C-alpha cells in the first residue's frame, strides 16, 4: 500500500504562512438560509420538548387546548371588525404571558409568517384596480383608463380605503390564527396533541401523516445541515450565487431521492411491526376539574368575542 501512495500526497505545502485576503468573505445567502432552516426547526423541537413545564396553560389537558384552538380560529375568521380582532390578539398575548413562554421567540414567528402569508399576499387587493372605492393613497396617474382582460385599469391608481381595511382584516386574522396555533404548540407536547386529535375522532391517516412529517422534518434538517457542512469543508473561497443555486438544485434532487427511499423503508418497518391503519393510544386520562373550569371559561370568553 505504501508504495502505491501517489507522489503528490508526499508533497508538503510550500509555506506555513499565508497572505491575508484583501477583503473579508461575506456569509453567502445559501449558508445563511441553511443555518436559519436548521435553527428554526431545531429550536422548534426544543420548544416542543419543553412544552411540558408546569405553568398555567401547559397543565391543561391537550383535548381542551385543541378545542380551544379550533373554536378561537373559527371566531377569528368570523369577525368582521378590527376591534374584536385586536381584543382576541390581546387575550392570546395575556395567555402567553401567564404561560411564561418566550414572547420574543413566539411573536417573531407570528410576525414573520403573518407578514408573508397575510400582509404580502393581501396587499395587491388594496389597489383600486382590484378593490373599488375611495382612494386614500394615490400612487400613479395614467393618461387614460385601460382595459386588460377582465380588469379595468383606471386613470388614477392608488390604495383604497376599503382595500386597506380588507388587508388589515386579513393580516389580523392570519396573525391571530398564527398566535393561537403557536401558543398551543408551544404549550403542548407533540405526542399529547396527537393523542387529543385521536380522541377527538380525527382520522388515523391524517394523524399518521402529521406524525411522520414531524419526525421526518428533523431528519431532513440534519441531512441538509450535514450536506452543507460537507461542502463547506471542501470550499476554499467564495462561491458565486449561480453556483450556489446550481448546488441547491442538485441537492434538492438528491433529497427527493433520499426521501422516497426513506419513506419506503419506514413503511416496511411499520408493516414489519404489525401496522394496520389503526393508531393505538394509551394512557388517556379523564378530564380534571381544572380542565373543565378552564374549558368553560374559554368557551364563555369566546362567546363574548362572538357577540361583540
Amino acid at each position: 500500500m505504501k508504495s502505491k501512495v501517489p507522489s503528490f500526497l508526499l508533497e508538503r505545502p510550500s509555506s506555513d504562512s499565508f497572505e491575508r485576503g484583501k477583503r473579508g468573505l461575506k456569509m453567502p445567502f445559501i449558508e445563511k438560509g441553511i443555518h436559519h432552516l436548521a435553527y428554526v426547526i431545531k429550536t422548534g423541537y426544543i420548544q416542543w420538548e419543553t412544552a411540558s413545564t408546569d405553568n398555567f396553560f401547559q397543565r391543561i389537558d391537550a383535548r381542551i387546548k385543541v378545542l380551544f384552538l379550533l373554536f378561537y380560529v373559527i371566531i377569528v375568521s368570523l369577525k368582521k371588525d378590527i376591534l374584536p380582532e385586536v381584543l382576541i390578539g390581546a387575550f392570546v398575548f395575556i395567555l402567553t404571558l401567564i404561560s411564561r413562554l418566550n414572547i420574543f421567540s413566539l411573536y417573531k414567528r407570528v410576525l414573520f409568517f403573518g407578514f408573508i402569508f397575510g400582509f404580502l399576499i393581501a396587499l395587491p387587493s388594496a389597489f383600486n384596480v382590484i378593490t373599488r372605492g375611495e382612494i386614500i393613497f394615490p400612487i400613479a396617474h395614467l393618461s387614460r383608463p385601460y382595459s386588460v382582460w377582465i380588469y379595468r385599469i383606471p386613470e388614477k391608481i392608488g390604495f383604497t380605503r376599503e382595500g386597506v381595511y380588507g388587508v388589515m382584516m386579513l393580516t389580523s386574522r392570519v396573525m391571530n390564527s398564527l398566535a393561537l396555533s403557536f401558543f398551543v404548540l408551544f404549550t403542548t407536547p407533540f405526542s399529547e396533541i396527537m393523542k387529543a386529535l385521536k380522541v377527538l375522532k380525527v382520522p388515523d391517516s391524517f394523524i399518521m401523516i402529521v406524525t411522520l412529517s414531524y419526525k421526518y422534518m428533523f431528519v431532513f434538517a440534519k441531512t441538509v445541515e450535514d450536506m452543507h457542512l460537507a461542502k463547506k469543508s471542501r470550499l476554499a473561497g467564495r462561491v458565486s450565487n449561480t453556483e450556489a443555486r446550481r448546488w441547491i438544485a442538485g441537492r434538492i434532487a438528491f433529497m427527493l431521492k433520499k426521501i422516497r427511499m426513506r419513506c419506503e423503508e419506514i413503511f416496511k418497518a411499520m408493516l414489519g411491526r404489525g401496522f394496520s391503519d389503526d393508531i393505538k393510544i394509551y394512557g388517556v386520562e379523564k378530564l380534571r376539574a381544572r380542565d373543565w373550569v378552564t374549558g368553560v371559561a374559554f368557551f364563555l370568553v369566546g362567546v363574548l368575542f362572538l357577540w361583540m
Partner: protein
Amino acid sequence: MDEIIRLEKICYSYYEKILALRDINLGIKEGERFAIIGANGSGKSTLLQIMNGLIHQSQGKYFFRSNEVSEQTLRDKGFLRFFRERVGYVFQDSDVQLFCPTVLDELLYGPLQLEMKESEALDRAFEVMQILNIANLKDRPSYMLSGGEKKRVAIGSVLTMNPEVLLLDEPTNGLDPRTQCFLVELMLALNEAGKTLVIATHDLSLVDELHTRVALLSEEHILEKIGASEDILKDEELLLKVNLIHEHIHYHGQDIHKHRHSHYLFHKHEMK
C-alpha cells in the same frame, strides 16, 4: 514534532441548551496518529467539526499551526484557503459528502476549488482512483455506489486536495471487514507519507490496530484522559466508566458466564 493542532478550554453547546463539549484541552503533533474515543453522544464528532472549522466553539480557543481558527479568522479569504487546503474532513455519512454528478467530478471538486490547473487536478484524481481501486467507478453517480465504494470516494475527494491533516469521523462504521482492512492499511500508508490522522471512533480494535495516541471523552462531555492506546485500552475500569465496555452475561453450553465485553479486547470469563 510541533503541535499542528491546539485546543484550549473548548466548550460547545448546541443551541445554547445541549452541552456537547466542556473544557477540552489537547494538542496534536504533526504526523501523529490521534484517536478521539468515547461513547455515543460524548462529543467526538462535534470536536472533529470544530477542528475543521465547520462549527465554532462557544468558549475557548482553537489554533492550527499557531493561527487562531474562529468564525472571524475564517472570513479572511487568505486564511480560509490556507486552512481548507491543509485540513480535510471525511464525514461519517458518505451520502452527505458526495454532491457532484459523478465520482470523477467528486475527486476534481477540491483541487479545482484550490484553483489548480485542470490537467494537474485530473492527474491527481486518476492517481487517487488507482490507490483506492475506484477507477472503474469514475463515471458513476454517487447514488449508484455501495457503502464501501461511497466511503472510498469520500476519502478520495479529500485526498485530491492533499491535506496535511485528515479528520475521519467513524471511518470504519458500517463497512464490511475487507473494506475495513483496506481502510486501516490506507490510513497507515497515509500516515507514513506524513499525514496527521485524527479519528473519531468508538471502535476500540481500530484504535489498537492504528496504535494511536488517544483522547478519551466521557459521557459528561469532558476529556477523561489522554494517553497511548496501549495504556488506555488496558484500563478496563476507565473504559467501563465511560461506557465503552460493559458487563455482559451469556451462556457457554450449560454454563452461564459474566464478563466485561467490548467486542474487542476483554473477553475474560469467570465461572459462576
